[in-house]
């Protein structure tokens, strides 16, 4: 049953494979959401390969940087990318164990993602353009509320499992079987709002626009071009996939492989893809049926998720 990875070599290989797989799948998820959204609006939408074409195009271009940019500006996307890649090794995807789960659990995951966000925000401030600073301050305002909500939601699951380790958490959910507690749904609802806020989807931010009054994430990365921009885009897609995988792991880990048998891995792969796709449909529907909130309303929405997550944690104790 337990599938801890003790062998350092095996862990390294698994981490590499998992990261490569997620990196390869990430642009597809974005494109799929874009495509579904277009179909809901009776448009054809870009083909699913478009995400890869865009990345390839950006990576071939020459990086153009502002004259006033320092090393912070150059480091920003790279740290952002590295942090997200590091975070993927802490999350179980196909096996009921994270490749590098010996390194840490929930706290390390949230901390790594926060490091990436910090790097990008400082980089946005570096060139001194008003858009960068505006985007960074907005992003931080939302992050300051979203991060505690994310941690509370994750702690709710951790409390039930008795471990902060994501691999151990998934294993305990599998062991308990399909028993259900009201706090699960509260935490799920809270975390779903957080995922939407963190990935810059519509009620919070609009990924498809560059309107100066409303953009948050896009304002932060407005100065980037070429390979730098490709890194930022790729990381954002990876983070989105990571968050959805996290939701799948914590609340619906059905089908995840507990042994290294080829059959189990295939089932696990199909189950994971299916579940992430279902969540992607939910995200698309949320994005298509809601209007973007005014910026000053966003903290209200995020505080709803903070309340839900806190409530989930409180009910666990009662």
């Amino acid at each position, binding site marked *: 049953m337990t599938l801890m990875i003790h062998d350092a070599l095996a862990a390294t290989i698994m981490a590499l494979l998992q990261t490569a797989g997620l990196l390869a799948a990430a642009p597809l998820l974005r494109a799929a959401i874009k495509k579904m959204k277009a179909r809901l609006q009776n448009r054809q939408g870009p083909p699913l390969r478009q995400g890869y074409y865009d990345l390839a195009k950006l990576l071939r271009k020459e990086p153009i940087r502002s004259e006033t940019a320092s090393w912070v500006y150059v480091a920003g996307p790279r740290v952002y990318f590295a942090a997200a890649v590091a975070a993927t090794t802490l999350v179980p995807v196909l096996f009921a164990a994270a490749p590098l789960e010996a390194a840490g659990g929930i706290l390390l995951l949230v901390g790594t993602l926060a490091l990436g966000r910090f790097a990008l925000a400082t980089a946005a401030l570096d060139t001194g353009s008003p858009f960068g600073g505006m985007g960074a301050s907005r992003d931080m305002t939302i992050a300051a509320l979203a991060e505690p909500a994310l941690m509370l939601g994750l702690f709710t699951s951790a409390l039930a499992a008795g471990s902060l380790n994501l691999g151990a958490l998934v294993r305990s959910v599998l062991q308990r079987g*399909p*028993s*259900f*507690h*009201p*706090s*699960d*749904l*509260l935490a799920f*609802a809270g975390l779903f709002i957080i995922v939407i806020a963190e990935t810059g989807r519509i009620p919070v931010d609009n990924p498809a626009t560059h309107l100066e009054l409303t953009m948050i994430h896009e304002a932060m990365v407005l100065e980037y071009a070429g390979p730098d921009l490709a890194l930022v885009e790729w990381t954002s897609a990876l983070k989105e996939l990571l968050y959805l995988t996290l939701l799948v792991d914590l609340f619906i880990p059905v089908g995840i492989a507990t042994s290294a048998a080829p059959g189990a891995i295939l089932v696990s792969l199909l189950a994971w893809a299916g579940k992430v796709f279902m969540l992607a449909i939910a995200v698309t529907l949320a994005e298509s049926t809601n209007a973007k909130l005014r910026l000053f309303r966003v*903290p*209200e*929405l995020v*505080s*709803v998720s*903070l*309340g*839900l997550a*806190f*409530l989930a944690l*409180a*009910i666990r104790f*009662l």
Partner: protein
Amino acid sequence: MTNDVLILCAAGMLVSAYLMVGQKALFTAIRLYSAQSLFLGIVAITIAISESRHDLFVTAALTVSLKGILIPWFLMRVIDRIGIHREIEPFLNVPASLLICVGLTVVGYRVSTGFPEGARGVSHHLIGTALSMLLIGLFLMVTRKKAITQILALLTVENAVFLVAVGVTSGMPLVVELGIFFDVILAVLILGILVHRIVDRFESMDVSRLAKLKG
């Protein structure tokens, strides 16, 4: 399996009550109430199947058709007629309301352990969510100014009471349930007309303006 469905639906009702506190668009609040009633219908169907109490199918059908469809439709029509779509200024802002509602839910859950039924797993959660929804409904009623939101709060309270009646007790006679449904429908109709009158008179459905009658 039955217990999981019951808990899932009860939690869904609580989440919808919570989201109702969290936003101001009246249409969304009505849709949330509709979803809440659908969850209540699923609770009734689940218990009807698991305990083979066939009268509960009637209850479920009435819940879904009246509370899930008819009342929301009627309230949306009222809003369309009077053309007021948002709760502009509640007495308390959203984050503070949410914080208080978290406290109310904790109280509701804590109190539910005091009932003899509360000792058992599912009943504990059903009573807990129902008490929390009741408190949240009462809270919404006193902190919101728009008449429509207050009607929705009243209906939330009614849903909470119904959840306990269906889920925890061995059930009411069908005649009593029919009577309650009839009461709810009449209450909503009368309140809907009352909202029209308030808007006619004051050109707003802000009930705090009713105090101006004193002159």
